């Protein structure tokens, strides 16, 4: 009977992992090789429908959609990774500081933080993007800043709860300094919620990046990102549907992979939720 029981964690991990593996694999290959130059224009291949040569067709410049989707995977995932890294590093540092210092520093940082949280993430990124100007590092910065407040909040909350745990007290009784205790006992134990948050955030960033690109405020074209491809494909949705379907499917597959993997991770880190 044990074997027959459905295991969410295993199913989620397998399907999610497989989806992400495909995307990441494509992104990794795109570093060294794509079937065609993702920026290479070919006037004869404009609006070429899917064929053996170009399995996903070609776009309005005759650029190969598969190559662009692969290069887009690279751009999108690297932007997402950098953004998440940025948000996690800044957010953790700030969260630790506020959770640790409390007092007026905490209140000041949290006020700014709440002010930032009062914007929907995408709106904040939209505004920041307008200021920074659309480029690859701009979007990392904009989305990074937009998502930092939620990290700050999670880390601070975790720190506030962990610092009351008995093992933290035990460390203090041992005579360890506050900073040592923070880094040795509090931070590693804040890892679980942070990992879950970071995973979901990776998905959100992929989505936000493509939404921003879709609105024309993301990574500037002609650099291929899924959002750019989708935005460019809109006018030809009826006449050349393959242009819109490929990037849409890529985004959906990545998000599905991330969501499933996130569920598996949550189940693993928080066994109470396991089925």
């Amino acid at each position, binding site marked *: 009977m044990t074997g027959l029981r459905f295991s969410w964690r295993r199913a989620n991990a397998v399907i999610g992992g497989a989806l992400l593996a495909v995307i990441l694999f494509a992104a990794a290959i795109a570093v060294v090789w794509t079937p065609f130059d993702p920026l*290479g224009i070919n006037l004869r291949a404009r609006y070429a429908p899917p064929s053996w040569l170009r399995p996903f067709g070609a776009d*309005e*410049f005759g650029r190969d959609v598969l190559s662009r989707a692969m290069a887009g995977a690279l751009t999108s995932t690297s932007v997402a990774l950098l953004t998440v890294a940025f948000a996690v590093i800044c957010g953790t540092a700030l969260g630790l500081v506020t959770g640790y210092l409390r007092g007026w520093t905490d209140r000041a940082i949290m006020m700014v933080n709440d002010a930032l949280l009062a914007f929907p993430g995408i709106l904040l990124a939209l505004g920041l993007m307008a200021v920074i100007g*659309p480029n690859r590092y701009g979007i990392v910065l904009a989305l990074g800043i937009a998502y930092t407040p939620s990290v700050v909040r999670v880390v601070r909350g975790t720190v506030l709860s962990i610092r009351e745990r008995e093992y933290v007290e035990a460390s203090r009784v041992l005579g360890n300094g506050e900073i040592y205790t923070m880094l040795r006992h509090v931070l590693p134990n804040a890892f679980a919620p942070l990992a879950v948050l970071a995973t979901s955030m990776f998905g959100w960033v992929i989505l936000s990046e493509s939404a921003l690109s879709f609105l024309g405020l993301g990574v*500037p*074209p*002609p650099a291929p990102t899924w959002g750019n491809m989708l935005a460019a494909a809109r*006018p*030809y949705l009826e*006449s050349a549907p393959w242009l819109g379907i490929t990037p849409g499917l890529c985004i959906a597959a990545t998000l599905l992979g991330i969501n499933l993997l996130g569920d598996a991770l949550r189940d693993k880190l928080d066994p109470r939720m396991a089925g």
Partner: protein
Amino acid sequence: MKASNWAYGLAVGAALLGGATAASAQSMARVSINADIRSTYPGVNRDSNTDGVIHHIVEGLVAFKEDSSVAPMLAEKIETSADGLTYTFTLREGLKFHNGAPVTADDVLFSWSKYMNPETKWRCHSDFSKGNSEVVSLDKVDDRTVAFKLKQPSALFLGLLARIDCGSAGILHKDSFAADGSFVKPIGTGPYMLADWKKGEYVELAKFDGYASRTEKRDGYAGARKASIDTVRFVIIPDRSAAKAALYSGSIEVLSDLDVNDLKETKARKGIKVDIAETMGLSGILMQTKDPLLSNVKMRLAIAHAVDTAAIVDAVTLGTAKPNNSPIPSVSAYYGKPQGEMIKYDPALARKLAAEAGYKGEPIKMITNKRYQPSFDSAVFIQAMAKEAGINIELEVIEWATQLDMYTKGDYQMMSFLYSARLDPSLSFDMFAGPKATQPRKVWDNPAAQTLIEQSMTISDTEKRKEIFNKLESMFRQDMPMLVLYNGADIAAYSDKLEGYNAWMAGQPRLWGVTLKQ
């Protein structure tokens, strides 16, 4: 007081009732515009969408025809004095404003005084208050006649007066303004009246039944302008694919600026007609002559020779526009052999010139935007072609607002840019030539050329002007501050229920002389 209030109420009630009963049999045409209009004050706080709407409502003394020549509009006839300093306009008989008042010389004087008040910030204010076409005075001769006196003879005066972006100096009734002199709404003489402006959604115009039309055939903004459709609604659809979808599904009747990339698909669509006309705008690649690298004319020429203009234009406009390397629009009467000559596409020569200029593959940044698709597309093609010739161009796609800012400041290396239509060759040169020190937006800084341009503005003789423009053309080709690509085309797509709709060189929609089949 009471009685008048009561009467007003009755009038409003009747109007509403009338409106309601008429609604059942009313015909309505919906036209897409890609952004809200900026105001309803002709030539003040406007853009091309605003102009398109306004010219349905107001009319000036003169108007442009489709070949960019000027024809009388409200004026019946125009007399020019022998010294070329006095222009006398006689108004047509039976002209009426939307409120029923007759159009008199006083209205012309009143409107002109409004436009020439610096506070108004009329777009053409500086054209008439100083420089080549400075107006010294405007006088009433009789109730139907006015006379403009100029400081010096000008080849451009009538053209300026007809300028589309200045609202053709449209004649307004004084009730268009509130008691304190502020503008309220346009009460003009056009075939349509402003009915409703729902900001951000649509502008609705209603047919003006008392319209006194000219008898000539419709020609640009001139000629017969009689309306037959009861209501015209300009619907704001910022997104071009949405606008296209709206046209397909019958949510709008006219899409006045179809994207070339949609041309094939739209043409094939049942129930949709397409009309194409060449325009006088200008699409080109600006090269900053102050840039250390691009200050070398050989480098600029290298880029020009690296580009296959014909191939790009064909791909970008899908054959709707002709390639043109001259700043003078190809439809212009001044467009001759020197203008028609194409820059040779020669990658080898480009390589050689670049080498001579000491170019070692440094990246050159080219600014472009996604707002104007063909402009962006051209940039993408040029980047690819330049790469073939060993020239490393990097594209930087920025927002139109930012690009415009950089353009005004002259802050760029290369830029894929669009100029709006200039209807006279003098103006075509004037728009990009000038001293960079005082006007950083100017592209071509050549004092000799400057003198020639100013000269061309005062001479009325066509042949003499042609001579000047040919000279300017060769100077321009030598300096190559800008690689002109094409003038562009206006592609109008409209429902086949509309009879008589046409595209034209100004690109603006015209809903007069058009009928709607139910």
